[in-house]
């Protein structure tokens, strides 16, 4: 297995507060990795640094052999590293398929004058974009809703659209910010199945920040535990469950408290 994402000594200070300190880990091609920890542990900060939304104060982020430290999200996503948002983030006034279409434009690569002139290169690029849109709608099960206006759909569907927009950018690694937050148990289980499909059938690696223990333990091969900005443990679900440091700092004696 080759490393797809390598984090080396990543750190972020907000004034005097060190939100993340010396965080290092690797994510291999085809892995599902979970980043967990109590509130304020620095999970979201780490997440935002990897996706490019926040510039790190220290450290390096290497993705697919290239140093992407400090690049903007719109540049990072072209390398194949996409993200979703914690709340349901969609283009509310556009239809479901227009939402996905806007994500798929990232690889169109045709200048605006050629788009207006409708050159042959533009038309073949459009067909590729269209195929990607159809594929993503199919994978995420949104095809029946493609003509619905995104802002008028239920929360669970909007979260799914958020993932679909990310998938439309053809990522090799998808970062998910609390994908289960706000979902009912049924939707949550369905989401878990979707995540497995993305990896097993489409070869997309996943890194997610999550509070929902059942989802994390059930889907992740590798779990990283952050407490107060520092990594205190890393391992499989079983190793994490029985790690004394994690039990003391986060899970508590009864892990169901967080499930």
């Amino acid at each position, binding site marked *: 297995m080759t490393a797809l994402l390598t984090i080396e000594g990543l750190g972020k200070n907000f004034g005097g507060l060190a939100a993340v300190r010396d965080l290092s880990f690797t994510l291999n091609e085809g892995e599902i990795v979970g980043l967990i920890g109590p509130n304020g542990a620095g999970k979201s900060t780490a997440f935002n640094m990897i996706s490019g939304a926040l510039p790190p104060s220290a450290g390096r982020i290497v993705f697919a052999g290239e140093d992407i430290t400090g690049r*903007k999200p719109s*540049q990072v996503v072209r390398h194949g590293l*996409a993200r979703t*948002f914690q709340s349901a983030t969609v*283009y509310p006034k556009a239809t479901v398929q227009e939402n996905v279409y*806007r*994500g798929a*434009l990232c690889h169109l690569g045709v200048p605006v004058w050629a*788009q207006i002139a409708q050159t042959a290169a533009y038309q073949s690029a*459009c067909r590729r974009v269209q195929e990607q849109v159809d594929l993503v709608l199919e994978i995420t099960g949104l095809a029946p809703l493609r003509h619905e206006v995104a802002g008028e759909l239920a929360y669970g569907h909007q979260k799914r659209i958020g993932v679909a927009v990310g998938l439309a950018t053809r990522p090799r690694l998808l970062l998910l910010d609390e994908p289960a937050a706000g979902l009912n148990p049924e939707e949550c289980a369905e989401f878990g199945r979707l995540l497995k499909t993305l990896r097993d059938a489409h070869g997309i690696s996943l890194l997610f920040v999550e509070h929902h223990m059942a989802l994390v333990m059930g889907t992740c091969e590798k779990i990283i535990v952050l407490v107060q900005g520092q990594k205190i443990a890393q391992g499989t679900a079983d190793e994490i469950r029985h790690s004394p440091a994690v039990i003391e700092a986060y899970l508590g004696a009864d892990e169901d408290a967080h499930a």
Partner: protein
Amino acid sequence: MDNASTMNRPSSAAPAAPGGPWRAWIPALLALFALPLLLAGNPFYVHLAVLICINIVFVNGLSVISRTGQLSFCHAAFMGMGAFTAVICTTRLHTPFFVSVLAGVGVSVLVAWLLGAVILRLQGVYFVLVTFCFGELFRLVLLEGGSFTGGANGIANIPPASVFGFALDTKLSFYFLAAASAFASIVLLIALFKTPRGHELDAVGDNPDLAEASGIGIQSTQMFAFLLGSGLAGFAGALLAHYLGFVSPESFSQHVSVAAIIMLVIGGRGSVVGPILGALIMTPLPELFRSAIETQNILYGITLILVLKFLPMGLVGIGARLRRKKGTP
């Protein structure tokens, strides 16, 4: 906006198929622009028609910028830049009309690029404030420009526009140029908003964070819109100057920027029809209410508040609402 067209083509996510339905618009537009010719006997109506056409170009520029979520309060400054550059070229350098207009557009775009590089990182009300200041600064520069800009007196005796050797020295002859310009700017906008680039403008306006995260750079997209919109304003300014034969700093004050915003909001943002409706309705009003010049601005203010309260999508929104009530998509 184009719900209807996407419903007809179930597997397409909205980009225009080649030769798509927008071409159906062209005859309707041509008919609209031919209408004033029936009133050609009355020079006042022709005058209004010319001003409406120039305002359509002007407000179209503002609407492109607003589609990316930015509200420019210095749109009149870019109109003034186009106007003064073109006039200075025509009167001092004696360049042909086309060259003067190109120079006017070029200077507007260049200044928009320099300004945009600095201020487009600002969002919302901060962008509004800085553009407001820039508009005021531009007016002061014109006032202090001495003999170069004519100071408070401006520049008069501008020779009329000429196209292919024909001097457009009557209102009616200029109307053809103004109508062709307005028509071209409308077709450009319709075509642009059917392309992926147009969808990217809307994406940045609808949800900048999501756009940035899915590969649509906020700043580069807003810069594109700012350049195009300011270029259209400069073009409108160059036309206006050669039509009126006179420019002064007051022709491009904040009132004119505000008027453009009112036209856009009342007509409707987020639609190509909005600026046309806005210019069509709001251009004649000051001419009709010349006697009530004191109360005019109060009326505009009230209208703006009422429209924002009850018709947030502008007059275009009425059509969308009616269609929705009928149950058609």
